């Protein structure tokens, strides 16, 4: 790969200035290489960054690549920003879980599932860029539909929504119904 010095430097530069994760195809296009080459360059960069003397890390999200800092570096960044970044509150995590697994979903639906108003938690999540409006639901009032963002995937270290831990809601509900029927039969 010694002959690809310019391209690997270009790859680094692109990762630094890109706002959104860059896909293999996009990178191949800009660097005038084919996709396997890009993958090879990325793995070379990853190896370079794996040194403990390096603070960078490449994250993959939705088939795109993004440059960020290693989790071990977080305390330095928190000192820079004068605040330890707090984990999400219980309420926020509940709302986020509902959005992640049921998206697109409206605030009304979230409220109903939680049995409690979720305005503040939802506002926090939108503010943190973890969820966003992804449209309007047809019907009276055309309520806003919420979904998760790429920032959400990055925050939880997920490559894509498919990598969300599996929760078989349908199955759970089926089971609930069956057991209930059994109870009724007994009576």
């Amino acid at each position, binding site marked *: 790969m010694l002959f690809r010095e310019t391209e690997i430097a270009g790859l680094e530069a692109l990762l*630094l*200035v*890109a*706002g959104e994760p860059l896909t293999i195809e996009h990178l191949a296009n800009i660097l005038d290489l084919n996709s396997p080459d890009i993958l090879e360059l990325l793995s070379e960069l990853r190896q370079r960054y794996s040194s403990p003397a390096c603070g960078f*890390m490449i*994250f993959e999200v939705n088939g795109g690549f*993004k*440059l*960020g*800092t*290693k*989790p*071990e*570096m*977080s305390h330095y*960044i*928190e000192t820079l920003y004068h605040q330890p*970044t707090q*984990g*999400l509150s*219980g*309420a926020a*995590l*509940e709302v*986020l*879980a*509902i959005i*992640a*697994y049921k998206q697109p979903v409206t605030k009304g639906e979230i409220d109903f*599932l*939680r*049995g*409690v*108003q979720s305005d503040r938690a939802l506002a926090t999540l939108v503010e943190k860029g973890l969820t966003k409006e992804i449209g309007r639901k047809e019907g009276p009032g055309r309520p806003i539909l919420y979904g998760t963002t790429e920032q959400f995937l*990055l*925050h*939880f*270290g*997920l490559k894509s929504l498919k990598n969300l*831990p599996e*929760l078989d*809601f349908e199955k*759970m*509900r089926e089971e*609930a*119904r069956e*057991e*209930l029927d*059994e*109870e*009724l039969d007994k009576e």
Partner: protein
Amino acid sequence: MKKEVLAKPGPYIELPAFQGPLDLLLHLIQQEKIDIYDIPIAKIADQFIDAVRQMDDLDMEVTSEFLVLAAQLLYIKSRYLLPKLPKEEAEGEAEDPRQELVERLIAYRSFKEAALILGELEVSSGKKYFRTVDINEIRSQFKEEGDPLEGVAFTDLWEAFSHVIVRAEQGVETKTVEPDEISIDKMMDDVLRRVILHPHGTRFSQLIRGNSRMEVIMSFLALLELLKEGKIRCEQSAPQQDIHLLPTEKAWEFTEGE
């Protein structure tokens, strides 16, 4: 007062941790090790109401959602206490009054579980930070190349001008209000705009837009006013010919000082 509350027998519950009434109910069920599909409703309803009362005593915010669920529980409890109506008996497979509640609880439990998993994931995946990229700043470093008028032909310019004329002819400003609300100033603007847009003159008949009798009168008055102010002048090539209206040097004076 608080002593009394604390002295009250009953399950110890860590109140502030509840996300809402469903969370409290789920907690009570799990604490009593009750089968969620066969909730002893009378007992749980009483415990739920006790807990809500305690929250109230502790000056915690008891949102209306708690009261709604308490009422729902009491209602279900009452259904068990009342003898079944003959009609219901006849239907045989009457729906369990707890069914809807159980389904909501199960759904809530799944999402609560999902929230816990996400919480663990948040910690295990570690905190990472990214650069906030100012795309505009980066873009500004590169000169925009090429002709900003690329693909623009003369007809586009012509068309753009005719849009201006269409708007002026339509009298957008005067169209939006009731005719009797049109002020003479507005109408003078409307007339002047159309005269200025046509350097070769506008025929008198073209200026009067006959949407309504009132509008005709107003535009005629506006025209007289503009003539008096010297912003418009008349031309008539021959006695029987159309009168042409043209803008004068003074036509633009309205904008001075803007």
